[in-house]
């Protein structure tokens, strides 16, 4: 997380005393406690499980508790191919999550259809056709380190939010690139 001094260029809250530090602290605590929704649909779920396991441990970043219910989750990691039959259910679960919520699109299938993009008649070509996505993680499947990097991108998105203007969530997607 950036240091508090150069964090707040926001004209809305810049001159209020201590607002900068309050925002910083609140966002720090929020970012280190992003609870994901278990949403493993296909092979990327295996990598998500590997990220949750001992070697790549997502729990050390606060995202260990994978909630089974959308009502208690604030991050939906869509991991695996979404078919047209599953798509309404994905949308329903996304709608059931309380704000502020974030979506990570993990893997090729969820970004643009992956290997099924040309002949897959029943594959949804990208989950961003039904839910707004915050972070895309390419890969087939992406390595656990890549999923952790995607989680850090979500944490960075959180750090830009201000509690006095909570409705303004930045939803411009960030594409991970190693360069």
């Amino acid at each position, binding site marked *: 997380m950036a240091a508090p001094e150069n964090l707040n260029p926001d004209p809305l809250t810049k001159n209020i005393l201590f607002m900068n530090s309050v925002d910083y602290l609140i966002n720090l605590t929020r970012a280190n406690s992003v609870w994901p929704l278990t949403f493993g649909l296909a092979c990327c779920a295996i990598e998500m499980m590997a990220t949750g396991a001992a070697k790549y441990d997502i729990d050390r970043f606060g995202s260990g508790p994978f909630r089974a219910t959308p009502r208690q989750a604030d991050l939906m990691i869509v991991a695996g191919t979404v078919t047209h039959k599953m*798509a309404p259910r994905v949308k329903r679960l996304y709608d059931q999550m309380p704000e502020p919520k974030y979506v990570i699109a993990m893997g090729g299938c969820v970004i643009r259809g992956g290997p099924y993009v*040309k*002949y897959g*008649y*029943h594959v949804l*070509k990208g989950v961003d056709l039904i839910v707004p996505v915050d972070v895309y993680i390419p890969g087939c499947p992406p390595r656990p380190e890549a999923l952790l990097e995607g989680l850090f991108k979500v944490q960075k998105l959180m750090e830009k939010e201000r509690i006095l203007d909570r409705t303004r969530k930045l939803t411009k997607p960030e594409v991970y690139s190693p360069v």
Partner: protein
Amino acid sequence: MATHEEIFKTLKEKFGDRIVEERLDAIDPFIVFHPSIVQDLAFFCRDEEKLRFDLLSLVSTVDYLPQAASADGKTPAVAGRIEVVYILDSTVHKHRLIAKACLDRERPHLKTVENVWRAADWHEREAFDLMGVVFEGHHNLVRILCAEDWEGHPLRKDYVIPDTYHGIKNVIY
């Protein structure tokens, strides 16, 4: 354990000319039967002492588009049909039978064998979903893999992938 010749002989004795073809020289020897005898054939295969095919491993379908013979005569003409393939196994005698029926592409109807082997329930639903074969007498012939309101039968050779599904774009341009 009966050999393929013995199994085919037993079937031929019972059904005579309803067994349209037998191929012993293929990698998996098979018989082709007329679709009208499918229920009798199923009961006979399951209950006859020498056969005892008590395990239905697979009900699958193959689509053949009609094709004229090639000009140089090397490739023969293909008659247009939908074949339904049954793979039957015997856990008692440890032998296997592959039986096929050829159906018309315009009206692929066939009696169900769900009352003979319960495994046929979902296999026939899949055959209906993906190829459009209607199994008469099935208690619940609805789509099993594709979405309930999907249109068309995707594994047919002349299937065209739809552009949208409920307004969602389904192809990349």
